[in-house]
């Protein structure tokens, strides 16, 4: 768990640096400060379970064991990228690792995750679909449609709201009728209200293990609200000046990575062991970055490839 936390933290910091160097183009949405949720669920999931991510999905993709070099190369727009550069930061997908996509339209992946859960139910596969959303997604129509359908059909799905307090630039509380945007609405779908400290990986793991087990056993869906805070802005275009300094400082003092490190030390894990994990994460990210940089840009032929299952984009004879 600690290794995963540190790897995600180190990767995200490097992604930030590469963006500032203009090597990562477009936009990126980092999970700095929110790593414990992806890590806690990632550890609790079975290898054939499904993950559905938002556009802030580097962490959740890595948490399923997706190769870091391929993720980094995708951010850099290289041929070795997870999607050969066709998707970019906001669309990370690795079907092989159960990462069924990162979706950049807020809330849109909730019905799609419900569909994957329906398929698992129909096939009797015992798989569970875990769908991560932001707090902003709780105010979009797809949230309601997906949760209602999942509840009515008893689907094996866990919807995880990462409440980082801001929907893009606006405090979520200013635009939402209830204080807890997900947990307070669970009752509308006959679901239990579940709030968890999203900065505590152990607490997240416990909730993940429980809700996934319920779903796998045929007990239907859950909606989990994990309270957290992003250390940076919404995207790389956002310096996040709208957030009060004391609020930022209060949350930084609850940074999940050092908090978890301290807990492990208090439990008797030797500092040297933790330091070694930190160093290995640095090396892994460094290697992934260098390997990704060595990859050429994608071949131009990809522009017209793979609209259809036959690999082409042909629309006429």
């Amino acid at each position, binding site marked *: 768990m600690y290794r995963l936390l540190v790897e995600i933290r180190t990767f995200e910091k490097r992604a930030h640096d590469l963006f500032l160097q203009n090597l990562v183009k477009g936009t990126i949405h980092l999970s700095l400060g929110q790593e414990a949720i992806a890590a806690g669920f990632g550890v609790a999931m079975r290898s054939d379970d499904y993950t559905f991510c938002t556009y802030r999905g580097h962490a959740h993709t890595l948490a399923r064991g997706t190769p870091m070099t391929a993720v980094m190369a995708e951010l850099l727009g290289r041929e070795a990228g997870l999607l050969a550069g066709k998707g970019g930061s906001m669309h990370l997908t690795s079907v092989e690792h159960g990462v069924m996509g990162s979706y950049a339209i807020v809330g849109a992946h909730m019905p799609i995750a419900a569909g994957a859960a*329906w*398929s698992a139910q*129909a096939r009797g596969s015992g798989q569970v679909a875990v769908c991560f959303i932001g707090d902003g997604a709780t105010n979009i129509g797809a949230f309601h*449609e997906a949760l209602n359908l999942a509840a009515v059909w008893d689907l094996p799905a866990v919807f995880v709201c990462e409440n980082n307090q801001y929907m893009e630039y606006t405090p979520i509380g200013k635009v939402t009728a209830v204080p807890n945007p997900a947990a307070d609405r669970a009752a509308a779908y006959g679901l239990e209200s579940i709030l968890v400290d999203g900065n505590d990986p152990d607490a997240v793991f416990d909730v993940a293990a429980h809700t996934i087990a319920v779903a796998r056993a045929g007990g239907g869906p859950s909606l989990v609200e994990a309270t957290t805070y992003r250390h940076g802005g919404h995207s790389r275009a956002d310096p996040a000046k709208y957030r009060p300094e004391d609020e930022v400082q209060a949350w930084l003092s609850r940074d999940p990575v050092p908090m978890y490190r301290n807990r492990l030390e208090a439990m008797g894990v030797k500092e040297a062991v933790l330091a070694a994990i930190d160093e290995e994460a640095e090396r892994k990210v460094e290697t992934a970055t260098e390997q990704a940089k060595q990859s050429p840009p994608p071949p131009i032929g990809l522009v017209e490839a793979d609209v259809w299952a036959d690999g082409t984009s042909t629309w006429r004879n």
Partner: protein
Amino acid sequence: MGRRDLDVAELTYREAVASGIAQEMELDPTVYFIGEDVAAAGGVFKATVGLLERFGPERVRDTPISEQAIVGAAMGAAMTGLRPIAEIMFSDFLATCWDMVANQIAKARYMTNGQVTLPLVIRTANGGGSRFGAQHSQSVENWAMAVPGLKVVAPSTPADVKGLIAAAVRDPDPVIVFEHKALYPTKGEVPEGEHVETLGTARVVREGNDLTIVALAAMVPRAAAAAEELAGDGVSAEVIDARSLVPLDTRTILGSVRKTSRLFTVEENPRLCGWGAEVASIAAEECFYDLDGPIVRITTPHVPLPAADQLEDAAMPTIDRIVDTIRQNLG
């Protein structure tokens, strides 16, 4: 295709819809069917009667009025091993789940570099003539045609609706089947036994030498009737049912235009960017020197459809309007 030497049965278009779905559900246990009122009620157009009884509530499921959930769930199921058929009751309602259709389903394969395959079908009742008013009547096949990543068919006969639904279910890509609601009661011969058509193929409905009319769905019988009337003038019109907009059978259409040297399209969709505009553009680009006169599009004007009989009839291309327009243009 697949029609020779087979016995035929006379079915209505709506019976042929159910027959096509049933055929595929029988052959492939991964085919599931969901939508609003499709199971217990048999569909608001009674086009899915009997499927629940035959295949059970696991495979034939009623949904809430949640178009995003219906289409989104179909997508999630298709990427994980099922071949879902999702019904959107009226094609106008596609606007309520257009994100799922245009942003999610259509783009998934491309942006994942081919990791995701989506063998799914969206069936929907399209088109006017039923006095339902503007929000239950529009022909929106051109919306779908404009989105890369969607295959689009619009059958005009019972045999075609069965065969094209079957082809859509078997296709590995997302296909939208625009059934025409005014055609549901129409009857026609449908081959007995397994029947599958081929996506991307047009059908020559009537052969002719003087001009080509390309039509779609409910406009096909009108174009055929217009051709019959023109035959009385000594004008020989070839009528082509485009059937499939994506892929588009340009070979059949352009082959006919090269033979007749005149092209007319009959489109129910509103004028701007209707499917015929693409057909006309291709013909102008690729067989300009074969043409003896301008390409003429006969369409619904660029308006939503009105409800009252006289108004709706005046809006959509009628047999008379088709005949008159062609006569005027032939001079």
